[in-house]
């Protein structure tokens, strides 16, 4: 039996506006840029792909299934800039063939810095998914698939989740196979799904690469690769950014044709089916314990934290933002809290990455700044202003206290 489990990551950060040390305004975010990027990606990717998925689910009468993890910060932007995207996600949710997973609302690295903040953001995100799509997430995926044993234990102890996702690259797994369900060490209930990075990346990265020997990739060929897993695994986890469809791989690469023919080709083999993560967990027993003591992620070739924590600027910025936690919480002001949490989104730190910067690669494509240095300067200027606002808030609060 080969089950195909699609999971799409859907996320856009609140990008900062240009903010110099001389700025005093409490408006940190670039409304215009965020709105235009949100609408652009909605038109190129989110709307057409959602519509296509809806059509496919109807066509295959519930046999085609997918799952999403949509961040809270993007859902907020949809509500503001293109609410029709939420309607199409909701329509998908209503089919019963689409599962929404849990993550940190702010797509943050809070797991590494503050466990209270981490859990609070997960709960906030699950609440939003319930409100919008009427489902309670049962499977958790951490920002950028950052994972280790300890994360699994933390998630199990929250008593809300049955499963967790992780990266399954060769150098992490060794000779183990990502096409089974595993259990993290020390966990009794929580099961673990591993990304089949080769097949996932064939779609997400190599699809339009003309120098790739498999180019052009057609649905029937891809289905044959999935069939090969039969007998050597139970589930093929295809995890990727949702923007793969129409944004990273443009429409003219044929990515939509590929997607629209894939269910048919996969289902031609009688042993194949499509499952959502919760269904995978319900159906398959763990093939063993998967020990991952060191932190892994799905980023770059290193699959580690170096994209967000690879230089002194990044570690300083992260350290500084989490150092403000008590200050923010004491201020008891929802605006300060919202601004602070939006500043935790991992993208801000990704923009500061100096790795490969000189070579001009994928990092540059996603970066609204000219250089990692510019992004650090901008971020720190904003953070300083936020701190100043907190201090002045708590000072005025302290003055008010004796009288009250």
């Amino acid at each position, binding site marked *: 039996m080969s089950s195909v489990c699609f999971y799409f990551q859907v996320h856009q950060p609140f990008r900062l506006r240009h903010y*110099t*040390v*001389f700025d005093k305004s409490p408006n940190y975010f670039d409304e215009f840029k965020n709105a235009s990027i949100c609408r652009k990606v909605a038109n190129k990717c989110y709307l057409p792909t959602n519509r296509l998925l809806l059509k496919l689910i109807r066509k295959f009468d519930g046999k085609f299934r997918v799952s999403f993890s949509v961040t809270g910060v993007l859902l907020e932007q949809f509500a503001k800039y293109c609410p029709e995207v939420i309607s199409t996600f909701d329509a998908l949710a209503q089919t019963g063939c689409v599962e929404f997973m849990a993550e940190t609302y702010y797509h943050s690295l809070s797991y590494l810095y503050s466990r209270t903040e981490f859990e609070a953001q997960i709960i906030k995100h699950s609440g939003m998914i319930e409100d919008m799509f009427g489902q309670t997430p049962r499977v958790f995926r951490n920002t950028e698939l950052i994972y280790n044993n300890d994360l699994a234990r933390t998630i199990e102890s929250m008593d809300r989740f049955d499963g967790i996702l992780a990266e399954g690259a060769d150098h992490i797994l060794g000779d183990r196979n990502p096409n089974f369900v595993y259990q993290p060490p020390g966990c009794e209930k929580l099961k673990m799904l591993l990304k089949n990075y080769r097949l996932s990346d064939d779609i997400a990265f190599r699809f339009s690469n003309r120098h790739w020997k498999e180019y052009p990739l057609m649905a029937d060929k891809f289905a044959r690769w999935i069939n090969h897993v039969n007998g050597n695994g139970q589930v093929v986890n295809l995890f990727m950014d949702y923007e793969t469809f129409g944004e990273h791989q443009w429409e003219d690469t044929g990515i939509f044709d590929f997607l629209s023919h894939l269910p048919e080709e996969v289902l031609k083999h009688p042993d194949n089916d499509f499952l959502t993560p919760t269904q995978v967990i319900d159906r398959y027993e763990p093939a063993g314990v998967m020990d991952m003591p060191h932190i892994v992620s799905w980023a770059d070739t290193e699959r580690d934290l170096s994209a967000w924590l690879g*230089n*002194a*600027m990044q*570690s*300083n*910025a992260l350290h500084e933002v989490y150092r403000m936690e008590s200050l923010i919480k004491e201020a008891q002001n929802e605006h300060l809290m919202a601004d602070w949490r939006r500043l935790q989104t991992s993208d801000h730190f990704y923009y500061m990455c*100096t790795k490969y*910067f*000189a070579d001009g690669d994928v990092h540059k494509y996603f970066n609204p700044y*000219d*250089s*990692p*240095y*510019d992004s*650090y*300067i901008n971020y*720190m*200027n904003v953070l300083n202003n936020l701190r100043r606002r907190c201090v002045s808030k708590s000072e005025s609060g302290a003055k008010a206290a004796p009288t009250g």
Partner: protein
Amino acid sequence: MLGWEFPPFISGGLGTACFGLTKAMSNMGIEVLFVLPRPVEQTDQTHVRMLTPKSTPSGKEVHYEYEGLRNVQFLAVESMLSPYASPEYYKEKLDEVLREKRQVGQMSGAEAEERAFGAHEEMHYAGDMFSEIHRYANSAVGLAAAEDFDVIHAHDWMTYPAGIAVAAVTGKPLVVHVHSTEFDRSGEHVNQPIYDIERRGMHAAEKVIAVSHLTRNTIISRYGVTGDKVEVVYNGVDRNGDSRIMPRSGIGGDEKIVLFLGRITMQKGPEYFLMAAKRVLEEIDNVKFVMAGSGDMMNRTIEMAAEMGIGHKVLFTGFLRGEDVEKVYQMADLYVMPSVSEPFGIAPLEALNHDVPVLISKQSGVAEVLTHVLKVDFWDVNEMANKIVAVLKYPPLQLTLREHGNFEVRRLRWQDAAQKCARVYSELMVHV
């Protein structure tokens, strides 16, 4: 190779570039005959130490040999301007003289050291500037007749007439190397005779080498040279071998230093540096701005600092050399090059070599090759100040810039520049 300045007779990047390039060529086994218009008899101690005379024939030529430059032979042509006691100022003086020609009556006093030469003396030589260049051309033709070579490589406009003449006499291909154009030096107020010489040189050459794409664009759009004739060869930098263990210390303990190092002329944008300094001082106080260099805008710049009320925060050191340059780099927390127009800009590479992070204007050729630096439009004073404050305020920024910048600068090697020139040569030699 026809040049105008060579270490230690230098005032700017041209001499440094000629040194780096010929050294790398020498290592590649390319034989270089370098012709210089130098008042070589007037040697002072700094270069006597470095030069070892190979032969001193009577007449107008003097041969020199540099240690480490075994394939480079130097021919120095006696110069009219030899009375200058300090040859390092040679080119600077010439620039100044020319500028004075343009701004008759508006001559601002130069720095104290230079004033010693006396204005009337400068005016006396000013009139001879162009005939001087032609004298150099004549001498070069004379020398060329006695030498055997394959390609003529002329550096900057003053040597173009010589290059053209030698090419005409010998029929050898001419390459002109553009380190700077009149538009960089003078903005839109170009000196027509200089422009004409530049244009003639570029058109007469079979290949034009530009130090950046920025300069290449100027050559194509302002001088009407066809694009396929212009190659870009970036400058490099020599890694300084001495690992100084001296601690980096500020002037007054925690006082920060922001450094401007270069000629204080219109081209280098000193007024933008001051305007940014003023903005910075609104935000932080424990900082000093050091302006190291001299030039025709020096007095105006000093006045301007005073008018802006930041005179006590801006220090003028005059022209620095040797150890003083090392010292000022060691004190600096940030090097700023706010140039209005900079064909390349070797100085930021040297700053990076000295572990000083740099902020450069986007209107510089070096901005095309450096990524681990801060970049700003020269006119965007607010952003310049923002970035200066950030470097002074956020130590991890300074650290990351320094570490990556120092590493990046190692990849800009003269060896690569020399190889590119050699490729240009071999193409031309196939043609012939």
